[in-house]
């Protein structure tokens, strides 16, 4: 009887630890909702919320040591590109490329564009 009880406890412990250790595949931090809000309103406030969402996704992913979702770094880079923060833009495009080699061709085009913007800024 005691043996059965012990076995049951061991199995239960195993099952529970199996569940507790399971990490989510991605942490999007409300990406779809924030993206929808951006499309619907498109104002400065919606853009700020979009930026916060992307940053939160990166923080939450890093905190759990899981892969940052596809496109999150690239989207953040694009926000910086649009306000002429070319160094930050390049930083995030590089991060996307490193994490997802599938994005290499596209990210290199964007990095090149950011570098050109940086040069023309320096010359003017």
């Amino acid at each position, binding site marked *: 009887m005691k043996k059965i009880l012990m076995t049951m406890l061991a199995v239960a412990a195993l099952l529970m630890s199996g569940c507790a250790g399971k990490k989510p595949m991605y942490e999007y931090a409300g990406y*779809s909702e924030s*993206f929808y809000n951006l499309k619907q309103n498109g104002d400065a406030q919606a853009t700020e919320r979009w930026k916060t969402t992307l940053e939160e996704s990166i923080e939450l992913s890093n905190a759990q040591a899981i892969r940052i979702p596809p496109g999150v770094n690239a989207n953040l880079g694009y926000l910086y590109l649009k306000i002429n923060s070319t160094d930050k833009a390049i930083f995030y495009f590089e991060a996307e490329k490193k994490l997802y080699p*599938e994005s290499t061709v*596209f990210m290199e085009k964007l990095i090149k564009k950011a570098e050109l913007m940086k040069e023309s800024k320096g010359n003017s």
Partner: protein
Amino acid sequence: MKTFLKYLIISVSAFVVLTGCTPKMVTKAEAFPGMYNEKPRSLLVMPPINESTAADAKDYYATTIEVPLAFHGFYVFPYELTSDVLKQQGIYDSELLYDMPLNKFYEYFGADAVLFTKIKKWDTSYMVLASNLTVSIDAEIKSTRSSQVLWKYNGTVVVDLSGGGNSGGGLAGLIANAVATAINTAAADYTTYAKQANGRFVGSIPYGYYHPGYLKDQQVQLVDQTPAD
């Protein structure tokens, strides 16, 4: 022996009844061999083709598709970025691209495949005592190397907005229902149902590279529901 026969008859008839009711099933490998041959790792989401009467459906629907595809294992190009780039290249209308060679998207983005979505329905239909909200999406993945269709499916979600057939309350109840419907069909609700429609079709796509089930789901059974055309 007699009881054995009885069980046999019951189980055979149960089998007949059950198979009679089940829809036609296919495995993922039978339905979508191109996905397993070409093994696309990255998907470029094209601007949705809008055949519905709702002009704003295109932009709103586009915000719902990236996340489920990523969770299914694909590298999905960020739509906010790629749609801007396509616009700058003069591409607003995916319909015009549908029959064209797609190798340009491999050259420009490095995308292995392209996802076309068609919004068939995005509307509320009012009837005397009830109203339905329908979101219907056709979707196709096409290769950027061969321009072949690698996968296609349809996802329709119909929602009864009248509160589960509870028609009590006479005329006052009817008016209350109409008000509730007007409130219920805010634009945000459509995206909720669009997500449900997406959930139906995304599940049928063979898993992508970043999913633990990648190249292990060939024998998974699906309801054969490819669009008729």
